[in-house]
């Protein structure tokens, strides 16, 4: 079920804009049309917003933005966190302490402030969002990779590789990385959900995605002024967002590893 929802969202993100075009087209004549079942017609299955934009098209276009930022930021975070964590755990000593200090610092400094400031002072948009959200969320990856390297350092296959004269880099790449793949993917999913939520929140505040691009958070923000008369403008994009997050959580939970990862975080 959860995988089906996520699959649908990914499908929407990839092919949606070609199937349901005109996400941003303003048709003032068609303002605030109800969804089907609430008085609307199949021309706009999920109704329209205050400027006559089609909600379904907006949700589909928003899926692309959300998932792009979600996966993009998670990949950036992994690219920073995993190498740092592996090196910290594998080499230990001074390097480990230095990276530990970096983690402590990042934990104590509210990531939100950094992201907000960069969005406001430097530039808003998809790519800056991916970079900033990615840069502030590497810690879990680092901790996970460090714990992994620590346990692997003691294990037989690494000892054997060391005896055979492999270099540190080669050991990390050939022996450690393949073994950490499946827990790593679960952690990725959790991070994707965090980044999707982050993007939605920032866009809601007007500091993320801006028109003419569209995003679920932005749609929710735009719909607030019609809350009294047209609930669907706010409720439907939010539902899409919640269901996506739910699917990501459910997949990582049922795959069993999430709790372990969360525990090693504590």
């Amino acid at each position, binding site marked *: 079920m959860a995988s089906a929802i996520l699959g649908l969202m990914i499908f929407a993100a990839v092919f949606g804009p070609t199937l349901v075009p005109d996400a941003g087209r303003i048709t003032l004549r068609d303002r605030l049309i109800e969804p089907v079942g609430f008085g609307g017609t199949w021309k706009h299955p999920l109704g329209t917003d205050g400027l006559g934009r089609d909600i379904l098209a907006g949700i589909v276009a928003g899926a692309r933005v959300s998932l792009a930022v979600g996966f993009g930021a998670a990949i950036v975070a992994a690219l920073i966190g995993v190498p740092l964590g592996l090196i910290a755990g594998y080499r230990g000593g001074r390097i480990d302490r230095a990276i530990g200090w970096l983690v*402590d*610092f990042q934990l*104590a*400094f*509210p990531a*939100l*402030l*950094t992201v*907000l*400031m*960069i*969005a*406001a*002072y*430097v530039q808003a948009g998809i790519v800056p969002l991916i970079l900033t959200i990615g840069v502030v969320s590497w810690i879990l990856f680092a901790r996970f990779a460090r714990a992994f390297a620590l346990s692997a350092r003691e294990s037989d296959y690494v000892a054997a590789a060391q005896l055979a004269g492999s270099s540190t880099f080669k050991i990390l790449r050939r022996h450690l990385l393949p073994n950490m793949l499946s827990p790593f993917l679960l952690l990725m999913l959790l991070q994707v*959900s965090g980044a999707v*939520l982050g993007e*939605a*929140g920032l866009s*809601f*505040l*007007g*500091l993320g995605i801006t028109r003419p691009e569209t995003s679920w958070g932005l749609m*929710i923000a735009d719909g*607030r002024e019609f*809350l*009294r008369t047209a*609930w669907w403008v*706010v*409720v439907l994009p*939010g539902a899409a*967002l*919640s269901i996506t*997050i*739910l699917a990501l*959580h*459910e997949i990582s*939970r049922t795959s069993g590893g999430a*709790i372990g990862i*969360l*525990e090693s975080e*504590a």
Partner: protein
Amino acid sequence: MLQVFVKRTFRGLVLAFVAVNLVFFVVHVIGDPVGRSLPLDATPEQYAARAESLGFDRPLWEQYTDYVGDVARLDFGDSISTQAPAMGSVLTRFPRTFLLVGVGMGLTALIGIPTGVILATTKRRWVDRLGNSLTLTALSVPQFWLGILLILVFSLKLGWFPTSGIGGWKHVVLPSIALAIGPLGKTIQITQVTLRDELQKPYIRTARAKGLSEGRVLYHALRNAGVAVATVFSHETILALAGYTVLVETVFAWPGIGSLIAEAISNLDIPLTSAVVVAVLLVVVVANSLVDIMYRRLDPRIARGLK
């Protein structure tokens, strides 16, 4: 204890220093507050005039020493948008966020911990399933969207609570529920998972072998699960105090520190931004120290440096 305090304070100072530099770096070095505060079609002359009025035409090192000097004296100047002293707004806004976070986290503890205990100890399959679905939903619903839904149902449709703003206790109800939803999910989850773990441990068997009541046995396990639960709970509290209330405060037009952060940053209000960042850091450092002290009380092994 004193040593810990000194260490904490030192770390706090280092953190504040790095943070202040980070703000400077974002605003003055990679940022372009001048350009972003002007319309896109502004002429170079307009740009230069604005840069001069903001002091951005001076050499970077001069901007830096001025900035650090002001921050060191905790003199952030007046807010650009309101003309009021920046630190003054911070001091009026913070208590309101404390209120919201206090009520929200209070709800979280009152509902989350008992629910987690029930889920960890239940033998009924349907209770377990229902609980897990609710927890998952709580973890997945975005706070700000939930806030809007609450307004839709309880303010606009039912008229039980005001839609926004501050005033009596009724104003606090909806925003604190919206704020509590994520921490609630995490608290239930961590309570359930760690308690279930603890209940499998040998000391529980010893407690049972002594013929203790199930209530007392549960107390044994809870005492041990407490450390992990407190970690998650305090982490969530600190995040909320650090400005993560921004979304909920925006939805409910709650004039706390979160909405101040959003205003300051959206308006490119540099003095106000600096004041907020430093104040938030201060709160985070103090809160972290309190959490450390709490750990020492919860687990005697930490106090002796065994863990």
